[in-house]
């Protein structure tokens, strides 16, 4: 299909879609909930809640090796979920999909296994200054352990990575690049395809932290050509305690296991243990198979809406909120990259984020306040954090109006 054949986004019926999310009907302090904390976790559609419920009620049984009916059925469901993840991110094979407890576990797995196998003294790992701590601290620990050095790609005041600086950082000592796809604090969509290509030109593998991208962007790991892609299930309308690590088969085969125990072995004797095939080599112990089923369902739900349609609507929300927030005097938005998702970090003159967040909460609006686990990012701006409002497709223009009205009310109160 050439570019001109690309299907046009279809307008989503948001009113109907909102009915898929039972929690959106909740009232907070007597007011209709406005949920703008999607960067922290997304709400769950009924199909996900029901899939989890049904799996517990009808199918629960430990996966793999069970010869009885339920175990084999549950195993099938677990593997169907894996195939759904594989399809969603267009991974070449299901063996390359490792279920984890979340993006943090996925990154820790690579940080441990990769660095154990390949990182040596004086080597370097590159992250960026906008990383969430979970894509920074694991590398820092690995570097400390091996006597290696952690380097960081800086960004400009708009919140865009400086690729020229990145190019200068890449050198023969660089062993891996670990960069976020979308900044959780600023919303910037990083040019990861270019970042990956630049690293690959020097034979350096790249891990992408997709925690804030998986719910907004179309992910095609083959097109990106990333070596690892990590994300959490709960940020993409799935259950908490689920996550994924995609890794190219050759890496996953080469890396030593991260955790050990049941299921990840082939043969065990006191002399030696051989490991199971992929993906099980990296899934020690009983996995969160029911969570995985829920995640698979969430991805199906999202695919049903159409990522392109979701993106088109979220872009409208982004543009609308950007314009509306700009009308508020004394409000400064951090993160004005040309390419961004509907995440708004802002500060208001004379008001601490905690005070704004507290009052918004009382008005029924859920936002997040603080550093959002990105200390170095806020150090760039010489501040300690922000009020973050993160929107997804079930949010509405009306909710944005209400937020702006509430912010004006708070400003008045503080005068």
């Amino acid at each position, binding site marked *: 299909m050439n570019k001109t054949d690309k299907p046009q986004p279809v307008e989503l019926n948001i009113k109907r879609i909102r009915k898929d999310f039972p929690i959106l009907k909740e009232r907070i302090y007597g007011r209709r909930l406005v949920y703008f904390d999607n960067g922290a976790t997304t709400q769950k559609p009924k199909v996900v809640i029901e899939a989890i419920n049904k799996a517990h009620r009808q199918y629960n049984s430990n996966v793999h090796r069970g010869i009885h009916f339920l175990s084999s059925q549950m195993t099938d469901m677990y593997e169907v979920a894996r195939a759904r993840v594989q399809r969603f991110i267009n991974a070449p094979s299901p063996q390359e999909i490792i279920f984890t407890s979340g993006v943090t576990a996925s990154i820790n797995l690579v940080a441990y296994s990769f660095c154990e196998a390949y990182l040596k003294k004086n080597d370097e790992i590159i992250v960026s200054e906008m990383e969430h701590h979970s894509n920074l601290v694991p590398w820092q620990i690995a570097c400390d352990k091996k006597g290696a050095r952690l380097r960081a790609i800086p960004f400009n005041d708009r919140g865009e990575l400086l690729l020229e600086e990145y190019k200068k950082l890449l050198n023969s000592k660089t062993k891996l690049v670990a960069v976020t796809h979308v900044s959780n604090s600023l919303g910037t969509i990083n040019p990861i395809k270019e970042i990956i290509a630049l690293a690959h030109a020097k034979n350096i593998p790249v891990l992408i932290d997709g925690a804030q991208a998986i719910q907004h962007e179309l992910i095609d790991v083959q097109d990106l050509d990333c070596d690892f892609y990590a994300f959490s299930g709960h940020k993409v309308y799935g259950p908490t305690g689920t996550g994924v690590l995609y890794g190219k088969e050759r890496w996953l085969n080469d890396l030593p296991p991260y955790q050990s125990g049941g299921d990840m072995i082939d043969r065990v004797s006191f002399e030696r243990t051989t490991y199971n095939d992929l993906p099980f080599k990296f899934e020690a112990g009983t996995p969160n198979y029911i969570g995985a089923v829920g995640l698979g369902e969430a991805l199906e739900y999202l695919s049903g809406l159409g990522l392109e349609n979701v993106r088109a609507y979220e872009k409208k929300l982004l543009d609308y909120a950007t314009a509306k927030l700009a009308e508020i005097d004394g409000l400064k938005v951090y993160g004005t990259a040309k390419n961004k998702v509907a995440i708004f970090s802002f500060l208001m003159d004379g*008001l*601490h984020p*905690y005070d704004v967040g507290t009052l918004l909460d*009382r008005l029924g609006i859920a936002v997040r*306040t603080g550093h959002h686990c990105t200390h170095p990012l806020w150090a760039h701006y010489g501040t300690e954090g922000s009020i973050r409002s993160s929107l997804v497709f079930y949010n509405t223009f009306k909710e944005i109006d209400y937020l702006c009205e509430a912010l004006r009310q708070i400003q008045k*109160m*503080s005068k």
Partner: protein
Amino acid sequence: MTTQKIQQEIIKEFGGSAKDWLKKYGQLMKLGKTLPSAEEAHKIEDNLVKGCQVRTWYGSTFKDGKVFYKIDSLSLIIKGAVVLLLRVLNGRTPEEIKNTELYFIDQTGLRELFSPVKANSLWKVINRMQTDAANYGAKRNK
């Protein structure tokens, strides 16, 4: 004025039902603006109340048998609550502080505005105010 009387005054000022939360927050923020800022030398790591979402600095001294507090915060809401606490407890003897039950927090409905998770700064400040007073009293009586 006794701590009792001051608390009664505060309860009058902050009267009204829980539904008036917006008004109460507004009052706190206005009060917060009246709290004298602590000098920069006081705003050091050691004086930070640990484990809080909001940077809040705390210190106390014991002079002429009385306890004096120096508290500052980046949050206007917390500063407002600190103003009220200082009105009741600042410049009192350790015994007075020990014998003062801070009932105004409940009777004004302020407790509801400061859930333990969200505003742990405030509860930690109160705890330190009371603990310091008890320690000063114990030291003096040695």
